[in-house]
């Protein structure tokens, strides 16, 4: 009975003997990773549509670097090479979607390398990383190459991606110059929301088109059921609530919650990165706490912090707390009246 699946073959019609259950669901780690990557494709395509050839190059470079880093590290550590499980692909893709289209190509490559080698493989590989690799990769390159990582292009909508004009992101405009400057660019609130929704605005490759992101999120939430509402909804709702309460210039309740919920990387982060199985808590109630805290941190950083956008740091900070949440919040065992006080 020791060992994973022991096959014992005897003289009779060579029966396979193993411990049950003898049926397994058809899902595998690889199907999950590839499906999530697939769900990001609409956003990636919109990124290519808006930012042209540069976007394709960035996506390719970061994915290839991620896969190479994973394979080479695993070879160096004499572990089985598992790039076919799609997790390195997904990390690379997420990094590409999280950088501005203006960056030189070595930057996403550095991000992918750090994500895979330092954040994931050093900690024991898939399943053991404490932080979301893609987010650490992005944070690392944001700090290392601050200028390049905060230079955004306006969507050009041509193939070459040439003749791009740099501009600030909507959140950057709001933070540095106030609401008036934002409305100067986008004319009316309605137009602003519309631009945010379809994605015709400055930002990272994959974060601009809320419509495309929601399409993927819908697929994962309702069709594949790979993610649940707990983290993303509590995350987004908290950002909305807090920015509505404190985000305005005319006192309480004057903030623009819709703007805050649609802008920056919130939708991308909440649905595709905060929901990372490995780096978040696994008990549902803990996931709600995770989402609310991440939302609060995002709002705090956006409204009070030094960075215009806080989603990345909020998720990373909550990654720090996930083991603590896991430790304190356990599932309520069937028939256990009250979970015993833990040490």
């Amino acid at each position, binding site marked *: 009975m020791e060992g994973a699946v022991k096959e014992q073959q005897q003289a009779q019609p060579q029966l396979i003997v193993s411990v049950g259950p003898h049926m397994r669901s058809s899902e595998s780690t690889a199907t999950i990773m590839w499906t999530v990557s697939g769900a990001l494709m609409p956003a990636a395509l919109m990124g290519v549509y808006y930012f042209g050839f540069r976007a394709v190059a960035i996506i390719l470079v970061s994915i290839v670097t991620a896969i190479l880093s994973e394979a080479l590290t695993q070879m160096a550590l004499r572990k089985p090479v598992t790039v076919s499980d799609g997790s390195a692909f997904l990390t690379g893709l997420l990094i590409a979607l999280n950088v501005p289209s203006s960056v030189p190509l070595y930057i996403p490559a550095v991000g992918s390398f750090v994500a895979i080698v330092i954040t994931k493989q050093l900690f024991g590989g898939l399943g053991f990383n404490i932080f979301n690799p893609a987010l650490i990769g992005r944070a690392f390159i944001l700090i290392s*190459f*601050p*200028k390049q990582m*905060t*230079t955004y292009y306006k969507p050009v909508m041509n193939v070459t991606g040439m003749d791009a004009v740099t501009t600030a992101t909507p959140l950057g405009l709001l933070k*540095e*110059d106030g609401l008036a400057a934002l409305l100067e660019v986008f004319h009316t609130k309605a137009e602003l929301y519309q631009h945010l929704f379809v994605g015709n605005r400055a930002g990272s490759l994959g974060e601009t088109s809320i419509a495309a992101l929601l399409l993927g999120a819908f697929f994962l939430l309702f069709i594949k059921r790979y993610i649940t509402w707990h983290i993303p909804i509590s995350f987004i709702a908290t950002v909305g609530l807090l920015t509505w309460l404190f985000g305005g210039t005319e006192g309480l309740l004057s903030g623009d919650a819709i703007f805050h919920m649609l802008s920056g990387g919130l939708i991308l982060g909440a649905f595709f990165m905060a929901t990372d199985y490995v780096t978040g808590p696994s008990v549902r109630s803990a996931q709600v706490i995770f989402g609310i805290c991440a939302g609060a941190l995002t709002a705090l950083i956006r409204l009070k912090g*030094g960075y215009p956008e806080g989603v990345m740091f909020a998720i990373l900070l909550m990654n720090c707390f996930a083991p603590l949440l896991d430790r304190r919040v356990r599932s309520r065992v069937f028939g256990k009246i009250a979970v015993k006080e833990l040490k």
Partner: protein
Amino acid sequence: MKEMLKITLSLVAIFVVAGMIMVGVFYVTSPVRFKAEKKEKEEALKKMAPEADVITEVGKWNIGRKHYDYHEAKSGRRIVAYIATTAGKGYSSYVKMLVSVDRDIRVKGVQVLDHAETPGLGDQIIEEEWFLEQFKGKEFSQLALLKKPTKENIQAISGATISSRAVTNGVKDAVQMLIERYGGGIKVATHGVKK
């Protein structure tokens, strides 16, 4: 009892010897340090008004709870510049500066003394020499930070707006203070400095 006495005595002996060493070193080094500090300050001030031969502190002023001083720089008996220490609230620190103005209270120069802004971003206020350079000759009313190329006003360093603003505000505060003290006829265009 005897042992106790021995322990106490030995400890006291160590204390005394060590104390003497420390006091000795202090008396040797403190004048050196005092002189060095004074020299540093003088050199910094001198840089702000190279033509002056005497720079004397004439008063104190403050922003909020923090205290700063200001100086008169004279060449012979003629005042050639007023120099003030000042600071502006930056991204992660207060950017401490020296600002010198001429007799018409136009900025002569700005020197950053100390800051802890983000490497690569905020510290461009020193690295990008044109930034501090553009303060030269500006009047108080021109001290406004813009995010586009300008000759009239101050152009922010892209990606380092907060640090740029820290410098501009610090300079503005100092200039306003100097106008109030020495400006006489000069009108302060926009009173009340936005910080």
